[in-house]
């Protein structure tokens, strides 16, 4: 549905996006993850036709954004990073304008306005001037604007930034719902967000894609080393020392009354751990294998990137 090929963007001499390529298939929700200044917004602005690429091209539903820009843009609903609101309009007249810009006729706009107002929980604010809305509600109006014309593709640039936790949860729920009949690319630098909403993640750092995979694959793929979480009753210091001596264990840490141990790839120290505990007279309450969190993956990937340079 979205095909990005060899996209490069220079701002003057500054390289913001460096030869990236990826696809988003129909019906997918893909997370575009990266730290500040990674090039997320730049990439999204190119996909939506707000900026022209320096090199490369983008196809949205098989229309390329350079030569068939209007057709491509027709397929897209876009929530920019800075929500594009006319603060002197009411929510209703703003949605009406947004609908008309996308070529909808009056009857359809009226019907759809009621629907998106309900979807985005804006019932009480339809006739309020946008300038008087709080950040969270402006955010919802931004989403309403992006979906009013029922676009095939949704591009959401940091849709949960700057709103309170309850509304974040609501917005995430909403995005998952929308994912049922839209193809969605959403950017974020919040790691758990991706695992909650997305099926696939593309990690971008300093303008380059450093990883791209399904969420579940990614964590197992990345764990070249394995990690276990243990609960043991007994003296922390002694146990830690003993664990460190076990063959294959690289690192032991104690967090929130759990021991987290990291072992070298291909090693399974579980049997030996049990033996050691019995020998020390401590009770092993539980032991489970844990995948790497996205945070770990992210730090690892970006660290590797830097080491390569």
């Amino acid at each position: 549905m979205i095909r990005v090929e060899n996209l490069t963007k220079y701002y003057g001499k500054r390289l913001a996006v460096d030869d990236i390529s990826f696809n988003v298939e129909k019906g997918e929700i893909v997370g575009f993850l990266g730290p500040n200044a990674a090039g997320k917004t730049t990439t999204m602005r190119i996909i939506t036709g707000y900026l022209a690429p320096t090199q490369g091209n983008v196809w949205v539903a098989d229309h390329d954004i350079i030569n068939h820009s209007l057709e491509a843009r027709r397929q897209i609903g876009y929530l920019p990073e800075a929500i594009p609101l006319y603060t002197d309009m009411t929510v209703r007249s703003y949605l009406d304008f947004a609908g008309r810009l996308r070529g909808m006729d009056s009857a359809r706009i009226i019907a759809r306005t009621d629907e998106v107002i309900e979807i985005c929980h804006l019932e009480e604010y339809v006739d309020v001037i946008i300038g008087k809305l709080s950040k969270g509600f402006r955010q919802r109006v931004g989403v309403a604007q992006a979906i009013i014309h029922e676009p095939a593709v949704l591009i959401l640039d940091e849709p949960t930034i700057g709103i309170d936790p309850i509304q974040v949860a609501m917005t995430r729920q909403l995005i998952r719902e929308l994912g049922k009949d839209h193809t969605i690319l959403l950017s974020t630098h919040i790691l758990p967000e991706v695992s909650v909403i997305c099926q696939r993640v593309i990690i971008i750092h300093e303008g380059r894609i450093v990883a791209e995979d399904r969420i579940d694959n990614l964590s197992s793929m990345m764990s070249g080393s394995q990690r276990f979480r243990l609960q043991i009753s007994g003296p922390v210091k002694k146990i830690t020392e003993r664990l460190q001596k076990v063959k294959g264990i690289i690192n032991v840490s104690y967090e929130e009354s759990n021991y987290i141990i990291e072992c070298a790839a291909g090693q399974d120290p579980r049997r030996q751990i049990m033996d050691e505990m019995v020998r020390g007279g401590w009770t092993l309450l539980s032991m489970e294998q844990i995948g790497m969190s996205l945070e770990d993956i992210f730090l690892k990937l970006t660290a590797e990137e830097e080491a390569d340079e």
Partner: protein
Amino acid sequence: MKNTATIALKELKSYLASPMAYIVTGIFMILTGFFFSISSSTYYETSIKGFLEPGNLLLLLLVSVLTMRLLAEERKMGTLELLITAPVRDSEVILGKFLGSLGILTIMLILTLYYPLLLIGYGDPDIGPIFTGYLGIFLLGSASLAVGIFASSLTSNQIVAAVVSGGILFALWFIGYTATFLPEAAGEFIGYLSLSYYYPDFMRGVIDTRGIIYYLSITALFLFLAVRSLENSRWS
């Protein structure tokens, strides 16, 4: 065409919803009314020269204020991102903005019809120069709007837009007066290019097609430049 109308209508509505258009219209009415009432041409010639003559420079100034926000504000507020990622051509955006502001200019000029109506009520004015005078000020106004929109497309700062627009307009107006200091051929050429060159003809009641074509060309030229400037911002 539909997109152009959508944008034009939105601009017109937002003009009518904000104090700026009312302030500008108010100033225009008060000042032109004042000049009209003290001008001897009003009483001795029963003409609207008293309104049209000082009205022109005032118009250049006020148009710069009216148009300054049209694109600069969109850029600043980020709404340009909605506007130009919608399936709308850049030319439709610019044309819509132009027609919306032309709507306000038209309303402003309709309000001034009060002056000729007074003349008709109390005297027997020559209708010809009134008609051509209005045509002239309307054409001048529309050319100025195009210049203002171009200036507004260059920046995200409204004040800068107004100053640039005013600068271009006054330069184009007064460049005609420098003609007398230049060698004849050059002077004549520069004169032709000046916003002020054809204006007196319209006030006198003469319809000069070259004048009409001139003002329309300036309008088209600056609207075209505004479209290019909008396109260019994608390549930043």
